[in-house]
């Protein structure tokens, strides 16, 4: 299996052993892949309905997408909005897939979705000892992700470009959820 975390910190070997199922690199970039699915996604694709599968199956303390709909509506660029929605739908699916494992955690902080000064969108998951970020850039080939931790978690330091391929994103998010499960 490929690895999803691109190692950029020589001190992170302990961490790598914990995520041996990770894939090799988040290759490619948003926008390079097939467009057919991408074009069909819009802000309306993102579920706000409390009866949706996501809200029905995840208790509120694990619903990290609280407020996501409001944040999505603030993104002026329709293509960037679609990128964000596409990414969040992938995140939602991975959360649903892992819902039974997540039950043991208790609660999770919500994703923070902010529009940066250069109109890129930063989707960030902030924990006390680590931060995970996904930056949807105006130049989509530069969209990227990172995972950094502090001394309590050995100062790991990973980053990479964000792939446009659903499978690559799913593998990356699966690895990230595994990290969250191991360190929360």
């Amino acid at each position: 299996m490929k690895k999803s975390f691109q190692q950029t910190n020589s001190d992170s070997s302990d961490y790598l052993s914990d995520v041996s199922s990770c894939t090799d690199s988040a290759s490619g970039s948003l926008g390079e892949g097939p467009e057919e699915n991408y074009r069909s996604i819009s802000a309306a694709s993102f579920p706000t309905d409390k009866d949706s599968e996501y809200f029905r199956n995840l208790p509120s303390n694990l619903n990290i997408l609280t407020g996501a709909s409001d944040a999505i509506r603030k993104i002026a660029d329709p293509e960037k909005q679609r990128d964000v929605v596409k990414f969040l739908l992938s995140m939602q699916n991975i959360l649903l897939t892992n819902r039974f494992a997540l039950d043991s955690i208790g609660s999770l902080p919500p994703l923070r979705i902010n529009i940066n000064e250069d109109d890129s969108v930063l989707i960030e998951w902030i924990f006390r000892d680590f931060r995970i970020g996904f930056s949807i850039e105006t130049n989509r080939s530069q969209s990227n992700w990172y995972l950094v931790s502090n001394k309590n978690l050995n100062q790991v330091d990973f980053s990479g470009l964000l792939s446009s391929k659903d499978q690559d994103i799913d593998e990356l998010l699966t690895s990230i959820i595994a990290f969250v499960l191991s360190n929360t």
Partner: protein
Amino acid sequence: MCYPDFLIRGIPNQEFLDPDDLPSTQLFHFKKPESARLPGYLEESINWYDDAGAISHTFNQTKEDGTAHFKVGIAILCRSELDRIRNNPNVRQQFDYERYQLPGNPYHGNMLLKKDAPKQLVRKIAAQLALNVTQIIKREDYERQ
């Protein structure tokens, strides 16, 4: 050049703190245009914690209209964290810091970032800085003392 162990980054408004009072990553984004003084670099202001006066000085900094520059408070970081980022082989001299005193602000310095640094590095450095803030002093707490 001699640097103290700590530095201060002002927090202009509540958007830079999350509900748990953790600093946002955006607090460490480089927002200013390319430096005219240092072509090829972006700079963001900090104050060096040379002595306790650096804290009161930062809280007392005002904008042109006379209002407080850092309405919410200040974030304190260890210089060793900046050194760790700066010395990472993957950063390769794209991130640095300096002391650059200004008239009326002897504590002033800058964090420096190469203008053409890859986006993924820029975002990650900002997250590392935010994650490693050692203390937040909120204005309301400071003024209550």
